[in-house]
């Protein structure tokens, strides 16, 4: 008899449902494609309920299946941490599937997308409940491969092919690094299950090596700089609801891997472990936004912004390690809560923004800023929902992005308590970089929203855009509602996170009801810091409404529509509007000259000449050139040289083999 009260059984049902959806859609062909999204919706609903109950009840259940590696089998475990990330994954899957349900059955379903979509959702769930290295790595690889297939869905596009190639290389490097990490954790005895790893204490040198491997392994999936290069290529190439999953959700699965290994498996942290996380995270938070603010492709900007948010999460995790290692448990809880909250909230608004970008792409067929504009008139609902996402990701109160940002700054304020001088020096630097990244994010999303939705249409496609189907709108609506609710009721989400922080760092934030109102947010104690989003929201709403009513009552209420004023010289051509590149020109001059060696070349014809004037902007991507292009050039050069070995005569091969044998024998004799 199967007991459906066991959360793992329910998760098995979820994975089974998703797996069978994959099988049916893959085997039965086009007619069966329609079942993919309804099944995903049902499965993710069950999973959300299960994860929520596990998280709130703070239970943990394990299972051991006799399949998989001989004599070892597969182990699964669902605890509060897994449930938390399961919630993130399955809410994302739910929204993306709801959006997918709105796709046109005749023209927009493809056997290249729907089977892999369900499989992708299933594998992410398996990664989260894996409880031994084999199950983890196997499902991790399946997750990479299914998402790779989704990136390649539009395989006629050369850019998509290139993106999927880069992604595949980066995913292989990542898995290789994780293999090393688990090899180190398994020890000479080869204990693959997480329970044994958890019980073992590792020598610091080994733990340090494992940490580096984990950072590379999970960092390449999450997109931490400089391992981010595949993300802005691959995320835009996939269909939009898949981009939402990859950017909003899959990066979080990578964060889960990092937290699971570093906070749970390696054991008690040492303070300097935090340094790579904090440094890389802070550099990513600023660096990725500099890319985002200068880019001119809607989906690529969103992908860069994902990289930025991963950086913020890394900073939170790094600070949590540092606080934990130096015995400041309550500060560690604040930093970890900030990081986890950012994981949840980012998955919401980033999915929302990608679905919005999908709606724009669907309505206009374009995602380049040069062809968009004025969509707020043609697609008012999408525009309103995208605005919620854009304001949330810019960390503006009272939306949810600000809650995690606020907590992170609170944890930085505990920095003077560090006993390590290096950390004490580091925290204000990180604080400055985070502040810079918050301001840049606002500039970036004002630009995105202003160019795409405001102003006048820059192309005939944008001028003829139509609102998206109702189901897609419902998917965005759900995420936008979550963003608003998450901002107002952040204290409730934090209370739900308490078991996880308790499990990982042994402390929690002050609970509900300790502040002035039941929903006040308190980081350490009441005298130190409070933030009360509902009160602020009520205040702002009240004063805005009261003012509007009063002004309308006093004034003559007359409003006249007229051509734009524009200082007396309005030009009917939409080309005279500020464009995306003109908007970012001041930022490019201030930041781009150092970060990208950006320069402008003005070619101004002399009076009387008839050729047009030209402005060319040159930007150099130093990270791509130094860390991707250069090794590839070397690799190709070495391969060319080694290629000679392929065309030798049989005598030469024999000589080579004989020589190698002699060399090894000598080595053996001398060394051992």
């Amino acid at each position, binding site marked *: 008899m199967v007991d459906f009260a066991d959360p793992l059984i329910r998760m098995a049902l979820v994975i089974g449902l998703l797996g069978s959806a994959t099988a049916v859609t893959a085997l039965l062909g086009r007619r069966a494609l329609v079942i993919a999204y309804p099944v995903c919706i049902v499965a993710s609903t069950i999973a959300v309920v299960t994860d929520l109950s596990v998280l709130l009840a703070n239970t943990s259940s394990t299972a051991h299946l006799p399949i998989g590696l001989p004599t070892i089998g597969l182990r699964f475990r669902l605890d509060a941490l897994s449930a938390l990330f399961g919630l993130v994954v399955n809410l994302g899957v739910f929204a993306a599937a709801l959006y997918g349900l709105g796709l046109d059955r005749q023209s927009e379903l493809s056997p290249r997308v729907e089977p892999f979509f369900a499989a992708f959702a299933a594998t992410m769930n398996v990664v989260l409940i894996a409880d031994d290295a084999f199950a983890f790595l196997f499902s991790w690889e399946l997750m990479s491969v299914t998402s790779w297939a989704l990136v390649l869905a539009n395989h006629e596009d050369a850019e998509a092919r290139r993106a999927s190639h880069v992604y595949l290389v980066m995913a292989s490097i990542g898995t290789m690094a994780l293999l090393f990490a688990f090899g180190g954790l398994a020890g000479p005895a080869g204990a693959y299950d997480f329970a044994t790893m958890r019980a073992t204490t590792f020598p610091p040198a080994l733990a340090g090596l494992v940490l580096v491997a984990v950072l590379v392994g999970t960092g390449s999936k999450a997109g931490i700089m400089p391992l981010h290069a595949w993300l802005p290529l691959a995320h835009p190439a996939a269909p939009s609801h898949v981009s939402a999953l990859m950017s909003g959700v899959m990066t979080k699965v990578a964060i889960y891997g990092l937290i699971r290994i570093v906070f749970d498996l390696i054991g008690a942290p040492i303070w300097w472990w935090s340094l790579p996380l904090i440094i890389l995270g802070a550099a990513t938070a600023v660096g990725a936004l500099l890319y985002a603010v200068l880019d001119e492709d809607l989906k690529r900007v969103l992908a860069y912004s994902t990289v930025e948010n991963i950086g913020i999460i890394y900073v939170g995790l790094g600070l949590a390690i540092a606080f934990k290692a130096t015995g400041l448990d309550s500060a560690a809880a604040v930093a970890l809560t900030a990081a986890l909250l950012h994981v949840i909230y980012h998955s919401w608004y980033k999915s929302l923004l990608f679905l919005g970008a999908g709606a724009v792409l669907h309505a206009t067929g374009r995602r380049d800023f040069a062809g968009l504009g004025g969509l707020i*008139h043609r697609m008012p609902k999408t*525009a309103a929902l995208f605005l919620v996402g854009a*304001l949330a990701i*810019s960390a*503006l*109160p009272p939306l949810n992005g600000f809650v995690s940002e606020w907590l992170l*700054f609170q944890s*930085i304020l505990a*920095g*003077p308590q560090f006993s390590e001088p290096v950390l*004490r020096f580091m925290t*204000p630097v990180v604080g*400055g970089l985070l*502040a*810079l990244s918050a*301001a*840049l994010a*606002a*500039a970036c999303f*004002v*630009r995105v929203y*202003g160019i795409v939705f*405001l*102003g006048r249409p820059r192309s005939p496609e944008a001028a003829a855009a139509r609102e998206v189907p109702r189901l897609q709108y419902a998917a965005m609506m759900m995420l936008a509602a979550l963003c608003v609710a998450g901002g107002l009721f952040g204290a409730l989400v934090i209370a739900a996170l308490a078991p996880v922080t308790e499990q990982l760092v042994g402390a929690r934030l002050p609970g509900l009801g300790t*502040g*002035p109102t039941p929903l*006040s947010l308190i980081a350490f104690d009441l*005298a*130190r*810091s409070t*933030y*009360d989003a509902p*009160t*602020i929201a009520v*205040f*702002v709403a009240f*004063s*805005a409404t009261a*003012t509007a009513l009063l*002004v*309308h009552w*006093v*004034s*003559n209420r*007359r*409003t*006249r*529509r*007229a051509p*734009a*004023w*524009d200082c007396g010289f309005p030009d009917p051509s939409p080309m*005279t509007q*500020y*464009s995306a590149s*003109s*908007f970012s020109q*001041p*930022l490019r001059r*201030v930041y781009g000259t150092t970060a990208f060696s950006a320069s402008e070349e003005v070619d101004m014809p002399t009076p009387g000449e008839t050729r047009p004037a030209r402005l060319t902007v040159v930007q150099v991507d130093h990270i791509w050139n130094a860390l991707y292009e250069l090794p590839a050039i070397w690799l190709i050069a070495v391969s060319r040289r080694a290629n000679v070995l392929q065309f030798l005569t049989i005598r030469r091969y024999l000589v080579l083999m004989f020589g190698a044998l002699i060399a090894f024998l000598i080595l053996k004799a001398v060394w051992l």
Partner: protein
Amino acid sequence: MPDALLMLLGQGVQMLLVLTIAPAITGLVRLTKARLMRRQGPPLLQAYRDLVKLVHKESVVAESASWLFRVAPYMVFALTWVAAALIPTFAAGLMFNWAADAIALVAILGAARATLALAGMDVGTSFGGLGSSREMMIATLAEPAMLLVVLTLSVTAGSTRLPEVASFFLNQPLAVRISLALALIALIIVAMAENARIPVDNPATHLELTMVHEAMVLEYSGRHLAMVEAAAQLRLVAYIALIACLFVPFGMAPAGAGPVAWLLGLVSFLAKMVAGAMMLGIWEVAIAKMRVFRVPEFLGIAFIFAFLAILLTFLTKELIG
């Protein structure tokens, strides 16, 4: 619950107070400048009259404007008003001071700025985009500097809540601290940038390629323009009040004090506002407007100073105690 009622009353008084004095403070800056230039200058009441006149005028809305253009002025006004109302002015520990700490305050002002920048891009003109783009560029430098300043003071006082910070400095023996001096300079520079004052921007010009804030709100007229202007005046009050609250909290009624202490606090607050406005006027007369691409260097100074301030505070925290 007479105490709670009193606190509520205090909060209401403050909300009305900042709103009432806002046009006068802007008027005072103008008057100071005019007198220093040997002009008669507009009377203090002129700023109020301008607002009333604008409210009564017809609003002209561009054909390409959306609902965002018409909603934004009220949102900007409300956000700025709430921010100004949450800064302790004449008394610490009013009813709703706890709702937002210093970090949230910076973010609320940021939300107002982002809303206005979006409205600037809504009509789709070159001037609007120019203003928004420059405003956001300036913000990317000014906002981090401001955050670092409030973090510095929060670390020193051991709290991010403004009433606590103010009372901490009230109860401290008067002493010059380098980190606080740096933070003060940084915050003043930020305040000049955020309020579109000389040398960053010139509130008195129109039709100049160097204008930022005025370019952004160029399309507004009538009651919408009145809201935008009122928000700008409130923002000036908020920044002067913030500087006063953080660096010269003297005279402010401590938490739990009665209406008598409030009156004293009110007098000192008004004196500080007048002093701040007059100093701003003198400064504006004494200095010339910068080119737009010199502004990042000017704001860079603020960022560096704020950063040095927080670094000093972090490294010497236990020496101060």
